[in-house]
């Protein structure tokens, strides 16, 4: 187990102006168990407490209560040991704008104890991996968002840490750069590096991680593999828009092949295992009651449906 956390909590005292303060419970009791070598995701909307959790695990923020071990060391009492074992790519990236990316790479490597020669060799390796060789000597402020992210990732990996934290690694990237970054993260797993990443993108957690937790309001609301979680909410989801949705909701709830119905902003979402066969039956049932559809669609259930089930909100709205 590379990460073990028990009942982690963090309460911030935030200033509210005029000398008043406010208690913000950012993380309210989180338990984590991340296996060595897996890609583990924390999925949740903005403000859920993902960054705070990662910061506690990475020894930046001291937990208000609870305990955590990272790479076998306590994050509070053995912080120095933890720091030797991790790479940390913050949400903001942490690339120094005023220096070439190569200089940041070499400095980071040397701070971790490498000689100049070793640091240069390792930096070269990463520049090649991330196709950064051509822009290695350009001041980072002249780089594009995607290039900077790649440098951020390279800096996080330069010490060959057994565990890397990636806080919202693809926020702000275009689809092409996102896909490339996903490939890089998968390569890390192939090399045996453990990854804890946070994201508010469903597809990212779905495509990338071995296991995940869904976090909302500082708490874990669901945990498992993407497959397991989706199975919880049945395989398919039919989304309907129609007038008289209250009546329709009752009708659909009465259908034996429909597992669950949820109403959300004038839309009805019906969960069922076999959408292809269920759909015609649903249409017939609605027709019998003279309920006219405005639109209908059939989709595979996503992690958003899992989030909806546990929080009553859609992640798209919450984020």
């Amino acid at each position, binding site marked *: 187990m590379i990460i073990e956390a028990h009942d982690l909590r963090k309460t911030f005292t935030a200033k509210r102006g005029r000398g008043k303060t406010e208690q913000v419970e950012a993380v309210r009791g989180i338990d984590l168990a991340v296996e060595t070598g897996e890609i583990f995701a924390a999925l949740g909307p903005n403000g859920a407490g993902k960054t705070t959790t990662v910061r506690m695990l990475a*020894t930046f923020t001291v937990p208000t209560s609870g305990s955590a071990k990272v790479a076998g060391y306590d994050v509070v009492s053995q912080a120095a040991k933890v720091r030797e074992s991790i790479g*940390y790519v913050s949400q903001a990236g942490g*690339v120094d704008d005023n220096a070439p990316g190569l200089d940041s790479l070499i*400095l980071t490597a040397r*701070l971790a104890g490498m000689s100049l020669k070793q640091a240069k060799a390792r930096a070269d390796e990463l520049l090649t991996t991330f196709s950064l060789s051509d822009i290695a000597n350009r*001041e980072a402020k002249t780089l594009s968002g995607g290039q900077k992210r790649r440098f951020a990732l390279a800096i996080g990996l330069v010490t060959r840490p057994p565990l890397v934290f990636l806080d919202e690694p693809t926020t702000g990237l275009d689809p092409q750069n996102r896909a490339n970054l996903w490939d890089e993260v998968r390569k890390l797993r192939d090399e045996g590096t453990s990854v804890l990443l946070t994201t508010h993108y469903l597809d990212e957690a779905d495509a990338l991680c071995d296991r995940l937790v869904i976090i909302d309001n500082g708490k874990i609301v669901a945990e498992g593999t993407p497959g397991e979680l989706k199975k919880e909410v049945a395989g398919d989801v039919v989304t309907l828009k129609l007038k008289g949705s209250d009546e329709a909701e009752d009708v659909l709830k009465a259908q034996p092949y429909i597992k669950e119905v949820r109403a959300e902003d004038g839309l009805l979402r019906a969960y069922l295992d076999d959408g292809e066969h269920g759909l015609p039956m649903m249409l017939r049932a609605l027709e019998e009651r003279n309920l006219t559809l405005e639109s209908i669609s059939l989709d595979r259930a996503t992690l958003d449906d899992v989030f909806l089930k546990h929080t009553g909100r859609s992640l798209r709205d919450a984020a």
Partner: protein
Amino acid sequence: MLRHTLLFFDYEVKNLLRRPIWAVFGIIQPVMYLIFFAPLLRTTVPGGNMEQVLAMFTPGAMMMIALFGSLFAGFGMINETRNGVLERLAVSPAWRPGIVLGRVMKDMVALVVQATLVMLLALLLGLRITVPAFLLMLLLMAATGMFAASLSYGLALAIRDEMGVSQIVQFFALPLTLLAGLFLPVNLGPQWLQTVAKFNPLYYAVEAGRSLFRGDLGDSTVPVAFGLLIVLAAITLTWSMRSLRSLAG
């Protein structure tokens, strides 16, 4: 510890060398004062010759670089509290005081180079000082830079807001200039002014500089200035370390 400090120092010096123009900008002010103001000052000192005027005025002009240069050194670090650079360094194996110390060392070196240029100009204009006085003056500048830069990083880490820090520095820069006797020795003024000046660390630095330029290397103002600047730098450095820790909330 020392290794980490030197690594940061090396990294920062490289950054500075990529933009040497800013260091040159930093001495434009004192250079202008030396060229345009010192001759004027001479006319106000009865029977004063240029050599004496420069010995009195040059230390003040040099301290100006510290006031208007080193005190702003922390500006770059404010952005680093937000863009994740400090966050990344804080969870790296880096020795934390080295993060600030390496930068302070870079600022000290920059200040010493700038001070050397200003002193060379003053020599051209007619200043006459001994080699030991020249070297001691550079050391004094280094100590001043250490204090001013540490203070600036301390402010940057504690306030973390460009507006806030620039307001504070601007607010204090003028009274510090006047109360250090940068242009004219404070002891020409009334007693109360002299008393107030005693609370200004720069006052001691300027006084020590004047003693050195008079050739009075053993004057008590010299060790007092060094001691004070070093102690104050240590205090501000400790303060900035505490602020760095509070960055995490």
